């Protein structure tokens, strides 16, 4: 029995790709060495903001934003409590204000409806914001999701579409043609999609393709339930803060502060200095946060390419092999990236351009 396609990695990229391919009639096997959406896709900050999205990715993020908000419609009822709300990116110093204005201009040019507003206006939109803000970028259509719901959201739709979902099934290697060496034995597929997040480099190595991927060890912090202190998605000019309060009252603090870990061990330890810095920045932006208790900090691994742009497209030199990932703030645009890659795999012209990886390949091929 030969699958039409094997997708390795059941994060949002792999799940979306697999779902679209299965619904188009392909026989799909979706494998993950762990449970579905257990890595970055399940533990990220769930920020769906244009103001932390790279300008080049804004057209994709806008379309994905719509998908997240309407997920129940296209995902058999699955949802991640996606919530639309205004977003503010805040500057506290003159230098940050200059950076903010520059970035807002670039992002607006790329299609994001971002406008610079005064402190007073920002505090009308977000009463929880510190009066020490100098100015803010305002995006009226921003939002957030509960990332931990992602696996549960995708799973039934995948099964309904006939995807052979193999969780806790590690892939050790892939031979030409493609024959996968998995924990559940050998599997054959006509096409291959690598969707393995920070492990994409190792996966590409199975095919002899040298793709350097950097691993970021992102820290996240959550408070206990507290009374409402904010109603927008907040960030800062540099991108190093994400802040949102969920309907249940918990506040999630992120922004890419680095902890300790690696591809082999995963995220193993929160760095106290990063933890403190991140939380101080959050409390500086929303002073009422000081009333809360911090309940948990954790880590997620995020992939980044050399130019911090995605790795999405055909794998050079290997027919019928594709790659998707390393998008940087990939959760935001994830479902849409999977859709357009599926289009390409099905032989259609993708709605928006992919991000071919030829530009990223190391000079020497792996032995």
């Amino acid at each position, binding site marked *: 029995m030969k699958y039409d396609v094997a997708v390795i990695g059941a994060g949002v990229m792999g799940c979306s790709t697999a779902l679209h391919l299965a619904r188009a009639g392909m026989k799909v096997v979706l494998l993950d060495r762990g449970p579905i959406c257990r890595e970055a896709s399940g533990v990220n900050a769930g920020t769906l903001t244009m103001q932390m999205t790279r300008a080049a990715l804004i057209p994709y993020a806008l379309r994905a934003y719509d998908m997240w908000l309407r997920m129940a419609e296209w995902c058999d009822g699955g949802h991640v409590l996606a919530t639309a709300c205004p977003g503010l990116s805040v500057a*506290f110093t003159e230098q940050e204000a200059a950076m903010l204005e520059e970035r807002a201009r670039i*992002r607006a040019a790329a299609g994001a409806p971002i406008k610079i507003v005064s402190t007073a206006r920002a505090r009308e939109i977000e009463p929880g914001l510190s009066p*020490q803000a100098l100015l803010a970028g305002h995006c009226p259509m921003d939002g957030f999701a509960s990332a931990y719901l992602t696996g549960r959201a995708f799973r039934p739709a995948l099964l309904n579409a006939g995807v052979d979902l193999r969780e806790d099934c590690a892939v050790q290697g892939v031979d030409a043609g493609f024959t996968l060496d998995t924990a559940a034995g050998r599997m054959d597929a006509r096409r291959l999609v690598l969707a393995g997040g920070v492990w994409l480099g190792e996966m590409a190595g199975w095919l002899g393709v040298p793709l350097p991927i950097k691993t970021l060890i992102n820290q996240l912090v959550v408070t206990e339930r507290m009374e409402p202190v904010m109603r927008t998605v907040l960030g800062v000019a540099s991108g190093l803060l994400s802040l949102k309060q969920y309907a249940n009252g918990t506040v999630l603090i992120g922004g890419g502060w680095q902890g300790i870990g690696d591809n*082999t061990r995963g995220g193993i*330890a929160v760095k*106290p200095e990063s933890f403190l810095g991140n*939380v101080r920045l959050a409390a500086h932006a929303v002073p009422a946060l000081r009333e809360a*208790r911090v309940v948990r900090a954790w880590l997620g691994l995020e992939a980044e390419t050399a130019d911090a742009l995605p790795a999405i497209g055909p794998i050079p030199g290997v027919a019928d092999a594709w790659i998707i990932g390393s998008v940087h703030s990939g959760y935001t645009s994830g479902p849409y990236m999977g859709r357009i890659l599926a289009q390409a795999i099905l032989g259609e012209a993708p709605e928006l351009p992919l991000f071919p990886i030829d530009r990223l390949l190391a000079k020497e091929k792996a032995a």
Partner: protein
Amino acid sequence: MTAIWDIAVLGAGPAGMAAATEAAQRGAKVVLLEESPAPGGQVYRAPPPGFVMPADADRRAGDGLRAALAASGAAQRLGVRIWGVGGGPLVPAGEAPAPFRLDGLDAEGRPFDLTARALLLCTGTQERIIPFPGWTLPGVMGLAAATILFKAQGMLPGRRVVVAGAGPLLYAVAAKLLKHGAAVAAVVDLASHGEWLRALPALSARPDLLARGAAWRAQLLLKGVPVHAGARITAAEGDAVLEAVRVQKLQGGPERRIEADSLCIGHGLVPAIEASRAFRARHRYEPGLGGWVPALDAEFRSTVPGLLVAGDGAGLRGAAAAPASGRIAALAALRDLGLMSSATHAVASAPHRRDFAQAARAGGAMAAMMALRPALVAAIPPETLVCRCEGVTRAAIDAALDEGALSMNQLKQFSRCGMGPCQGRLCGEAAAELLARRVGGREAAGFATGRLPLRPVPMDALLGEFDYADIPVPAAAPI
């Protein structure tokens, strides 16, 4: 504070007190950290300043350990909340292990941190309560909680008390309540008469404990307190607070309704392994030792070099075994640090190893009686809350399991069970048992990833005063 300690001991119960005392007596630089304002842990918990209670055997034992500690010269940091542990193997790939680092809030609520070359975890246990209908009613408290209430605060849990659960603690609590004037409406013992008879041979290793137990039962008999053996609480009832409980034999039959304003119920003790999990030490599942315990060698070394675990947190063996285990671990740490020769170590450690072996035998029999009983988990009705912090019912957990959440981490993600402030301490055992039934046992079920903070930590204490310019914001993200 830049000086590095030889040994940091986390937890000043009997194991921690004895360990710190032993190490300090032998000249090591030891710091003992404890959340309460005084050393003692739970079983030897000291009352607040100015409270004077009649001395009993436990009080005297605790005072003895406290006196030796005070005389030893070990530094004590009392009233501190340690929220973070790090160092050791928790370093970037390729780097050598670092000294252990503890982050905490001191007695005044100010942040502090310290480093030590060795870390001895003596964090003891916490109580397990398997959910049942009405268990969230105010008036339902733990069995060990009741002990802490009258030992450390000199207070009864209620006027008319039902005491339920398993193990000798049940009878200790009931007898104490009677002695101090409470009405004990019933003792509801999960263990049958047969179980107690079978435990006798092991108990005979500790004739003093046996005598105490017999005395407790005699007091209950004298006062006409009904003892329901092989029975469980099927429900707690009341409007806004507890008013009555229902009792039924484990094998079924009629339910009895007993009025009470207090239910003291405990289903065993579970080693507190948050810190050892945070270090990614290896653990193993040992029902006879209370469940998940760190994997330790004969001298209580974990699989993380420099990290040792002693006392009940290393596995339930009872308060009598705890000081010996603390001393054994402290001596092992000293030898590993090069502060003691092998020869000296062997001589010093031998008597404590003998003491430990003997004390552990009786403690082991009791642990078996207090082990989790799967029937209690099976009996949880669908609409009963399992996770109190997040309001997750048994039905919601079963639904998550049905939908493919087949690990503790995934169960958390699918149901939110364990995501609240207690981080699974109240619900974790029941949730793990429910998962275990689907995946073939507790080992397969595993446990959720150990993370910081070890306890919820108030933001404003953590942050302190700071200027915006102090925040070391990393390089801006790419545009």
